[in-house]
């Protein structure tokens, strides 16, 4: 390339126009495409959540009708679980960063990668259509026989949307697994892989093996609802609890699709900002695989009061305690990584500190629910709502934001305001705790979830929760503001603004379309901060 080119070519400016985006096979652009759709879903899900929290500020049902309320929390769950949490880290950050991190030009199947985005969008459009036409009111769990026979809302349309979006997840998982096996740069051995890549690999296994089960389950639901075949409805000779087994056989592992990739992000960011190798690299790597495998064996802990035998409940309780151990191991290793580091307080690691606090509470309260004797009382109360929001929002979304801040300069070539990002992390952390901590207390007091109208003694805690949610909303809005602002006004980031190791930081920001001018050759581990001077860009 001649030096007369004034503007350096990168993946963003190499071509312009809508068609250049909609027909792109560049993993980096596809990551951005996912970011746009997921951001829309997050906004929608957030609006639904806001309406729910407004309704719950008073014990009476005075803001919306009961049916509207039921549709609101259902659509909040559907939008957030299937269109935000599952794709957020793998499809946005994974797509953008993973091929760069292993020194590849792209994923193994670039066209399939674009196809998965289209499949995802089609699924989202079906679900949106269901929402626009009046929504769905079954809860995101679609429990039968309510969903298959009794609900008069748009169950089928939503189901089709989720069904289709599932294939996007399968294709992404497949693509990533093959990419990680086949596309690593010379010298990039398995134990030199960044831990984010390990986490994506473990996630890919769950996506490939688990997602077909939810597809089958939704199909059976559709067959019963549409054609009247008895599968789940006892009036037709079916078994409603069978649905729960099938649903959670996917949806519990799906929790690990949501949390494993953010865990990978945490490892990257902690290593970078404490200038150290991740403590116990191989233990962190294998704990991801352990979580992926054990994650398939705990589904019936959602059914402890659903009439399963007490002995099988006992086994599932045991396995649920067992799956907590690899997460504990990760947490201890991250903590130990900070020990004697040189910790550079920049926005990404502040989000990680937030993650650690919230994920810790989320994980530890999981032990309450794994305990049979406590779960009988806590099941289907606000304790469960608080627990999984600590994992999914406190864990997965905080981790996503840590990663988004970490790779944002690489994605856009621009720096955001560090002080704004610090303020946002603080707002989100405080707002989150104020929203969800009171819900643990509400749960132990016995307030059931999915209640439109509630007993007046629960009001004070609910008002606290709604107040927290508004702080949380301000925090998220602030993130959107300064990140968008940085696109116009942000300073140029340079190739390596965080002075990180890792191949993605060796190419320009934003990266050139083919990622690397020449294929990098790797001759050391992922986090060798201590071995050399880290070059400033």
């Amino acid at each position, binding site marked *: 390339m001649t030096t007369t080119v004034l503007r350096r070519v990168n993946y963003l400016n190499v071509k312009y126009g809508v068609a250049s985006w909609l027909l792109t096979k560049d993993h980096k652009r596809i990551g951005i495409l996912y970011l746009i759709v997921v951001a829309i879903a997050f906004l929608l899900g957030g609006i639904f959540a806001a309406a729910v929290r407004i309704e719950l500020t008073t014990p009476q049902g005075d803001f919306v009708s009961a049916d509207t309320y039921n549709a609101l929390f259902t659509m909040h769950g559907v939008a957030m679980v299937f269109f935000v949490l599952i794709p957020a880290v793998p499809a946005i950050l994974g797509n953008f960063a993973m091929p760069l991190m292993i020194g590849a030009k792209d994923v193994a199947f670039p066209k399939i990668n674009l196809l998965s985005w289209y499949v995802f969008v089609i699924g989202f459009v079906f679900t949106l259509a269901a929402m626009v036409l009046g929504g769905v009111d079954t809860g995101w769990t679609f429990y039968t026989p309510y969903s298959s026979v009794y609900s008069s809302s748009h169950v089928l349309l939503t189901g089709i949307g989720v069904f289709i979006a599932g294939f996007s997840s399968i294709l992404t998982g497949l693509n990533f697994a093959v990419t990680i096996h086949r596309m690593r740069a010379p010298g990039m051995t398995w134990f030199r892989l960044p831990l984010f890549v390990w986490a994506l690999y473990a996630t890919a296994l769950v996506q490939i093996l688990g997602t077909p089960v939810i597809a089958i389950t939704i199909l059976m639901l559709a067959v019963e609802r549409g054609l009247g075949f008895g599968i789940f409805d006892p009036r037709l000779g079916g078994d409603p609890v069978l649905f729960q087994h099938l649903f959670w056989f996917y949806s519990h592992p799906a929790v690990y699709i949501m949390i494993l990739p953010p865990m990978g992000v945490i490892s990257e960011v902690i290593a970078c900002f404490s200038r150290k190798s991740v403590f116990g690299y191989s233990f962190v790597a294998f704990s991801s695989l352990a979580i992926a495998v054990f994650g398939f064996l705990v589904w019936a802990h959602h059914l402890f009061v659903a009439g399963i035998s007490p002995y099988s409940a006992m086994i599932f309780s045991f396995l649920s305690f067992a799956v907590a151990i690899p997460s504990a191991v990760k947490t201890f290793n991250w903590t130990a990584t900070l020990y004697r580091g040189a910790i550079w307080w920049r926005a990404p690691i502040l989000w990680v*500190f937030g993650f650690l606090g919230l994920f810790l509470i989320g994980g530890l309260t999981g032990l309450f629910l794994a305990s049979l004797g*406590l779960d009988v009382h806590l099941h289907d109360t606000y304790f469960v709502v608080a627990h999984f929001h600590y994992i999914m929002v406190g864990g997965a979304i905080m981790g996503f934001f840590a990663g988004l801040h970490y790779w944002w300069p690489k994605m856009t070539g621009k720096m955001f305001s560090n002080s704004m990002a610090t303020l946002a992390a603080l707002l989100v952390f405080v707002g989150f705790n104020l929203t969800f901590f009171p819900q643990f207390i509400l749960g132990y007091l016995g307030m059931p979830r999915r209640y439109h109208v509630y007993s007046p003694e629960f009001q004070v805690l609910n008002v606290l929760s709604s107040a927290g949610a508004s702080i949380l909303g301000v925090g998220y809005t602030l993130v959107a503001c300064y990140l968008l602002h940085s696109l116009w006004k942000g300073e140029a980031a340079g190739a390596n603004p965080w002075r990180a190791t890792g191949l993605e930081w060796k190419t320009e920001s934003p990266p050139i379309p083919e990622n690397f001018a020449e294929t990098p050759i790797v001759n050391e581990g992922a986090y060798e*901060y201590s071995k050399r001077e880290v070059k400033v860009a």
Partner: protein
Amino acid sequence: MLSGIPLFPEQASTLAPKVDNLYFFVTAVTAFFALLVVVLVTIFAIKYRDRTGEKVGSPIHGSIPLEIGWTIIPFFVAMVIFAWSTIVFFHIVRAPDQALEIYSTGKRWMWRFQHLEGQSEINELHVPLGLPVKVVFTSEDVLHSLYIPAFRVKADAIPGRYSSIWFTPTKAGEHHLFCAEYCGTKHSGMIGKVVVMEPNDYQAWLSGGDLSMSARGEQLFQQLGCVSCHLNNGSGRGPSLAGKYGTQETLANGTTVAVDDRYIRESILTPQMKLVVGYQPLMPTFQGLVNEEGVMSLIEYIKSLPSTGRPAATTQAGAAVQGAAPALAPADGGPR
């Protein structure tokens, strides 16, 4: 201000302190681990802060003893919680034999309770103080869940199955009763109260009812024509039911089945499923002819049959057909 916020639910059953003690223990253990990590992260983040961003950390890569330690110690702690909670759980699910039985059905959006002596009530459950009570229930439509927070008990009501909860109330007065499994529009209105009464008051309250459940069951047994085949002397086209409850029955396929609530319900609604050996598959289904409460009454009647002849308790009830009307309310024609 703070005094207005409840932080802890009332303990109103013998189970509640058992559950709460476990809860305090798990809270203490998890708080310890949470604090440990939070304190360490805070100390490290401050102590090793580098404002320049240019230093590098110490070359520490890991420690096998530490890894083993923080794998095994949490595992053992988890196993202690597992063992304790499992013991509490088996206590929660195993009702004592002498427990007083009350039947219930959940349907959108109400709970109906049926006492053996004949009292029935909606969204209210009267129980005696200090005596073990077992509530056996099912659902007429979608999933529900019978939840009494003050007693720390809950179980899902599942159409086509019987579930149960049991408790011994320790506090007289009224307690919340909630539906905990989402069931549609008025899920949050499917609530009621448990009224715990002194045993004497409870007895007085019970006597306000009409026919006992087994008497209603006997009426149904005659009205539905069960009596024409299930002769007590065993000479009918169907097997005699006298004294069968709680025994083992041999089926046509050679297996045996325990004659319990579930088997009786199944035999009424899907009679061909588990045919008793030596009998022809002649019995029609009674699905749609008898509702869940009727089935429960029939079960009570069959339970009350001694191994020979008619039960003494129900002989006077046979003629009072009028009184059985509520139990005979036709089952829903279907949800759609």
